[in-house]
């Protein structure tokens, strides 16, 4: 028996009022991070011990800078989504839980923006 209202069915957001948005965003960023992380690890290994000029030359390539910015965005988005779930699972005090989630989201935006600025500065350094 269908107990939900027709409006509720159309909205498709369920009892949590947010639908599958969080879950889906976490999966999309996860899929994006597979190739990005492999590319990043290989790049960093190749740059092991290399001088500063080599890093500037590497990030000076527009393709590198594009992948780097995408990696930063996917990483921090995925990280804050994941940490949110962990906090929701283990922190039971409502105030503390809310405060921690806000802190994590602000920190992710701060660190992510800072990383993008650093990457872009290096990209346009030459």
């Amino acid at each position, binding site marked *: 028996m269908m107990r939900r209202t027709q409006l509720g069915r159309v909205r498709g957001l369920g009892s949590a009022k947010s639908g599958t948005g969080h879950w889906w965003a976490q999966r999309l960023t996860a899929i994006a991070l597979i190739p990005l992380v492999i590319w990043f690890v290989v790049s960093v290994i190749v740059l092991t011990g290399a001088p500063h000029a080599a890093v500037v030359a590497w990030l000076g390539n527009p393709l590198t800078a594009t992948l780097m910015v995408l990696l930063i965005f996917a990483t921090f988005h995925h*990280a804050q989504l994941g*940490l949110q779930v962990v906090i929701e699972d283990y922190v039971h005090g409502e105030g503390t839980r809310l405060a921690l989630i806000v802190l994590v989201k602000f920190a992710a935006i701060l660190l992510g923006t*800072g*990383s993008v600025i650093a990457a872009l500065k290096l990209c346009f350094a030459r």
Partner: protein
Amino acid sequence: MAAQDRPLSPHLQIYKPQLTSVLSITHRATGIALAVGTLLLVWWLWAAAMGPEAYASAQAFCRHWIGHLLLLGWTFSLFFHLCNGIRHLFWDMGRGFDLKTAYASGWTVAIASVVLTLGSWIWAYAVLGAAR
């Protein structure tokens, strides 16, 4: 009956650790470690953006044993979370849930993350040796 007298379900320490449960909690732990580890990424990028001296001091920290330990933990966490994350994506598609496959994929993840970690470090040291 008062709330504190109610019977509780057995907690974690009652159960024998199994590969599936150990990998599950390790996925969370490595996820948290990687979130904290993004500070390394931010620091590395900022050091590079600040100039050659800042970058050289970041490199010096990486060569120190504390830096090595952090990077080793970061590398393992990354490969574990990557491999087990792919395992999760297959589950999301409804595949690999039977016990035999879940154990086979679990062992594959455990072995692959160790092999990839060691392989990366051997490669990185080879790059370092060739540069000298």
